[in-house]
């Protein structure tokens, strides 16, 4: 069957890409403001000139036949480029030097399900620690790299809480770009090393992530930042689309079925909104049956502007000063916060938060039940999942996917108290004396 034009940002038809947008970014037709619908040609811009709202990619998918598209996707490759027809990338993207992330494991988590009181066979962990730099950020950076190439940039930059810095460094190295990234000066040492090792410039800013982000936003308007592709600023509309691939993969790995419930961490909120966009696209394209799904957002209590607004019934998000061990989620002024509230309410989900102590407990719980070592953000999603089950907001009889967005090796400090069970002499008596037999 032929499918209709899918334009997730407005109801109007997408414009002809070649007329207004000479760059080749596949099905991407234009940029459209999520707030007011104002349209501009594809370019390295991110905020609407009319209302400051976020610009998003509008697509023209009108040429696709559903079953042909499904076969094309299933033919691979085993990375996010299997979904190239649904992304703002050229058709030959898989031949270009990139980090080729994605197609990470969807782990059936029956042991965790038993501990949480979820029905067997219904709980899954989407384990994105398996990406090239061990976090989901490789998905978004791979997209941004293609946009940077299309717009003629040769330097990649970003504001980062750590994971993104590593992903940008690696992608720039692979593609032969210069990289210069900015992070809060007091990040976890593991993340600093995992970003610096790729050889790009890594700059610590004396301040928190929101300060770093502000600095990058100012740098982009200054001659000093001219010609730089900031993946999460002037390339943000392209970058953010990478998170759609999480939705695509989850559905394909479930046998082209929508998950009934999904628990997503919230930092800026971009990932959650793009997962929703991806699910909506699959429905409109006819690749999955249109059934209800609920999206739940997860935050750490020490940086919970979205869950605070959700619980108060507000539709605006009041910024907070972050104070949590979940530093990859420590964005006190989340750009997509209002949209997260809209999506949680529209789908019947919720936004919840957990304490740092609960984060650590959840990291250990996931590790001992499923053999998955999550970074603190994964502890937040697992911890919030437990809280949602306990409170009855999450239905334990429905298919639920929990996201682990990064590797625990990046945040070893969080579980620093974990260590040896015993120290013994190298003989059997000592082994027995220690109660290990």
């Amino acid at each position, binding site marked *: 069957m032929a499918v209709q034009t899918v334009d997730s940002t407005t109801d109007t038809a997408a414009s002809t890409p070649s007329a207004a947008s000479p760059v080749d970014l596949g099905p991407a037709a234009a940029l459209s403001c999520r707030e007011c619908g104002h349209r501009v040609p594809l370019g390295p811009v991110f905020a609407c000139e009319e209302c400051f709202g976020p610009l998003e990619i509008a697509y023209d998918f009108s040429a696709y036949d559903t079953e042909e598209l499904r076969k094309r996707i299933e033919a691979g490759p085993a990375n996010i480029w299997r979904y190239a027809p649904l992304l703002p990338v050229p058709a030959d993207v898989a031949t270009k030097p990139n980090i080729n992330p994605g197609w990470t494991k969807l782990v059936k988590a029956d042991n965790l399900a038993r501990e949480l009181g979820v029905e067997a066979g219904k709980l899954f962990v989407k384990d994105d620690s398996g990406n090239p730099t061990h976090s989901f950020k490789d998905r978004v950076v791979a997209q941004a790299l293609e946009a940077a190439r299309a717009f003629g940039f040769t330097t990649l930059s970003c504001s980062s809480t750590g994971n993104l810095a590593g992903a940008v460094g690696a992608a720039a190295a692979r593609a032969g770009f210069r990289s210069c990234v900015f992070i809060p000066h007091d990040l976890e040492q593991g993340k600093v090393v995992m970003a610096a090792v790729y050889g790009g410039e890594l700059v610590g800013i004396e301040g928190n992530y929101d300060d770093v982000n*502000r600095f990058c936003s100012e740098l982009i308007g200054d001659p000093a930042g001219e010609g730089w592709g900031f993946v999460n600023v002037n390339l943000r509309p392209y970058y953010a689309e990478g998170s759609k691939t999480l939705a695509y993969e989850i559905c394909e790995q479930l046998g082209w079925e929508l998950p009934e419930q999904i628990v997503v961490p919230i930092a800026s909120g971009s990932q959650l909104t793009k997962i929703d966009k991806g699910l909506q696209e699959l429905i409109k394209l006819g690749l999955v049956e249109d059934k209800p799904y609920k999206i739940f957002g997860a935050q750490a209590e020490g940086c919970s502007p979205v869950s605070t607004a959700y619980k108060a019934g507000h539709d605006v998000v009041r910024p907070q000063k972050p104070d949590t061990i979940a530093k990859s989620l420590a964005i006190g*002024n989340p*750009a997509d916060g209002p949209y997260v509230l809209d999506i949680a309410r529209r789908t019947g989900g919720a936004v919840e938060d957990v304490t740092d102590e609960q984060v650590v407990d959840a990291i250990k719980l996931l590790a001992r039940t499923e053999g998955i070592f999550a970074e603190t953000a994964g502890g937040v999603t697992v911890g919030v999942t437990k809280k949602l089950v306990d409170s009855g907001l999450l239905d334990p009889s429905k298919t639920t996917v929990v996201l682990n967005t990064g590797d625990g090796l990046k945040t070893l400090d969080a579980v620093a108290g974990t260590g040896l069970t015993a120290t013994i002499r190298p003989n059997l008596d000592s082994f027995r004396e220690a109660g290990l037999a």
Partner: protein
Amino acid sequence: MSVTVRIPTILRTYTGGRAEVSADGANLGEVIADLEKNHTGIAARVLDDQGKLRRFVNVYVNDDDVRFEQGLETATPDGAGVSIIPAVAGG
């Protein structure tokens, strides 16, 4: 009180391409009103129909986000730097 206002790229059509302009006002609301006098149309981009800061605009007076201060009532001392920045960055 005279302050320096940093203008984001998307508003520079109103300032003749200038990245920084001067404005007067004892608080942010007055500074924006003064900007409007000299750069007609700029206020409607920064403020919504109710005269409040648009939700996707961040404004800093020196290093302070005015949402943590008094919003449009935030004082703008002589010589202060005011930055207008799109809020949709990051993450």
